[in-house]
């Protein structure tokens, strides 16, 4: 029976292949089992951000809804440190926007139809207004 001997070169190549295969397996296995660990450095945004214009967004309440509660929360986002005026048919209230522009205020509704005017102003003379129609009913329809 002829005994085949491995040359140094072949042995080293085999060992190298085994190591490379092991490393690749470990890498893919790790990525598969811990997908959250993956970070895509290419998806990271630029260090600078685009200049933002004056904004006003209302998160709550939804427009054209019936509220069965007398008090509702008005919340949203505007330009940082702007002054927000929330006007109901019978009263006006102030909500100061924080450093990130977020604001929230609990207001009391009038019975029946409430057209809410949510207006935001800053000292550069910018302003925006959003109207919301809310109907307050004490009883279910």
């Amino acid at each position: 029976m002829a005994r085949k001997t491995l040359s140094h070169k072949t042995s080293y190549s085999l060992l190298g292949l085994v190591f490379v295969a092991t490393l690749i397996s470990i890498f893919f296995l790790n990525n598969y089992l811990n997908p959250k660990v993956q970070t895509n450095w290419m998806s990271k945004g630029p260090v600078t951000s685009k200049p933002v214009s004056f904004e006003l967004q209302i998160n709550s309440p939804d427009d054209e809804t019936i509220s069965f509660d007398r008090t509702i929360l008005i919340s949203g986002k505007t330009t940082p440190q702007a002054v927000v005026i929330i006007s109901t048919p019978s009263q006006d209230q102030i909500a100061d926007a924080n450093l990130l522009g977020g604001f929230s205020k609990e207001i009391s509704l009038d019975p029946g139809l409430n057209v809410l005017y949510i207006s935001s102003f800053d000292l550069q003379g910018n302003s925006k207004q959003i109207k919301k129609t809310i109907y307050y009913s004490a009883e279910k329809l």
Partner: protein
Amino acid sequence: MKLFLITLFTLITLVITPLTFAAESSSSADLQSKINQIKAQIASKAAEIKKEVNQKIANKVFAGRVSTKEGSKITLSTSIPRVIITDDYTDISYEKGLTQAINKDNYIIGLGDMDDKGNLIAKKLLKVSPPRELTVISGRIKSSSESAIIIDKDQGNDLVIKISKDTDVLFGGKEGSIKDANPSRVLIVSGFENSDKTINARFIYIFKQGFIDLFKKTASNSASQSGKIAK
């Protein structure tokens, strides 16, 4: 040396093979657990979406002036045309002093749920007087007296704000008075417009300072400081 290499190779093979199998079985169990997790997440998300959709279509109110009325279908002249559909179960009521009929330009309020076409199936329909349009604007104070404040609404366009004992005044977020309305300060006013374009102020907010003119050096006609509301 050769013996050492062969031993090392054998050892690596012996160690890697069971590890691979272990990893495979572990990944299979992990996969099943992941599938279950995703299933649970989907079910939870679907329930959330269903709840949101229900909230968006239930208990809605459409209000506005009647544009057209064809049988049980009423279209309102709102910025997005709204359609209210009445049926035998719709409870229709009229504000005292208004005629008991719904015609073009009448102001109505429909309460109910929305159908899949976005029309409101009215459970209640109310004919009421139209709500008064509120004006909320800002401007630079030009002059003030006990009964009125004149502001520079647009460059060169003055606006007279009438003050009454019912006018609430805030100065920099705290209780204030008309005495705080010094020229060059900025105010926000909320009130109702009269036929002569003056405003009966319901609420006034006076800033402690004037407008910050960021473009002072290159001021142009386009650099309005009026605080015109962009609707």
